[in-house]
């Protein structure tokens, strides 16, 4: 019963994509392996804006395809990686960078973990020291010593 319903339902999902379509974007790999290598490297460091947990390299969305095409063209035009990233951040903001830049707004992101680590170490040292100081030497009395020696002997 469920099986027989599944196929028509799946086909129904295809319907909207059949009635309207985007102008297809050319997203073919270039013949030049150098271009493709640089594109692969760059696009792994850039975020797809539509599907934000994917990089530009892995995303199948059309905006990612657009951006890959743009990057390819800019590489061919001789732009440096820095110029291309500048082009993209100017339009889409720092959000497009998977590796956030070190700016005052991202200080907490970059240095926060180290601060937490240092803070944790300080707390740990203090705690251990406090406990060590809390231990007072309690020497054995003469009676206890005698009993202990007896036990060891037997």
């Amino acid at each position, binding site marked *: 019963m469920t099986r027989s319903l599944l196929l028509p339902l799946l086909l129904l999902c295809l319907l909207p994509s059949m009635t309207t*379509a985007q102008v297809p974007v050319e997203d073919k790999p270039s013949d030049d392996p150098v271009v493709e290598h640089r594109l692969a490297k760059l696009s792994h460091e850039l975020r797809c804006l539509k599907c934000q947990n994917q990089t530009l390299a892995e995303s199948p969305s059309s905006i990612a395809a657009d951006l890959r095409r743009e990057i390819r063209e800019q590489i061919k035009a001789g732009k440096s990686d820095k110029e291309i990233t500048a082009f993209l951040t100017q*339009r889409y903001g720092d959000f497009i960078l998977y590796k956030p830049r070190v700016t005052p707004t991202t200080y907490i992101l970059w240095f926060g973990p180290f601060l937490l680590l240092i803070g944790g170490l300080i707390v740990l040292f203090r705690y251990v020291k406090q406990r060590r100081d809390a231990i007072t030497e309690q020497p054995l009395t003469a009676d206890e010593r005698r009993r202990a020696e007896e036990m060891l002997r037997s």
Partner: protein
Amino acid sequence: MRYLIPLGLFIVLVAFLAIGLYSRDPRDPGKLPSALLNKPAPAFRLPQLKDPDKTFSAEDMRGKVWMLNVWASWCVECRYEHPGFFEMAKTVPVYGLNYKDRPEDARSWLGELGDPYVLSVSDLEGRVGMDYGVYGAPETYLIDKGGTIRHKHVGPVTEEAWTKDFLPLIQELNRQ
């Protein structure tokens, strides 16, 4: 006293969660701030959708407050926001950027739903869209008399977005 530290940590945690929940539109965490806010609207000259022999440029709008709506016939949410533009067009000139759409599809879409735009231009490959930082449709920009982007709205312009974000800003910008 023993319970104060865990309680304090718990309150901090709740505060962070609350900020995460309420600081941005709870309906869509994918809405990004525009990198172009308060920056000059990128220049473009594109053929008009209904009269491809004529062009339209952002420069033509100098001295006017205007809205640029990014739309397409393949975009489902555009269909949802579309009727609202008829009312908005009484207050502010609304121009359309037909984004990555086939012009014939776009024209028949407007024929079916009506055309609230002063005019629309065809951005076939989405290159002008890229200059504006468009990452999906619909998106709507409000541009002031000096050609500066004053507001960007991602997703359909709902009545709430219009009355809360657009209208007060348009009135203020028109006074300048």
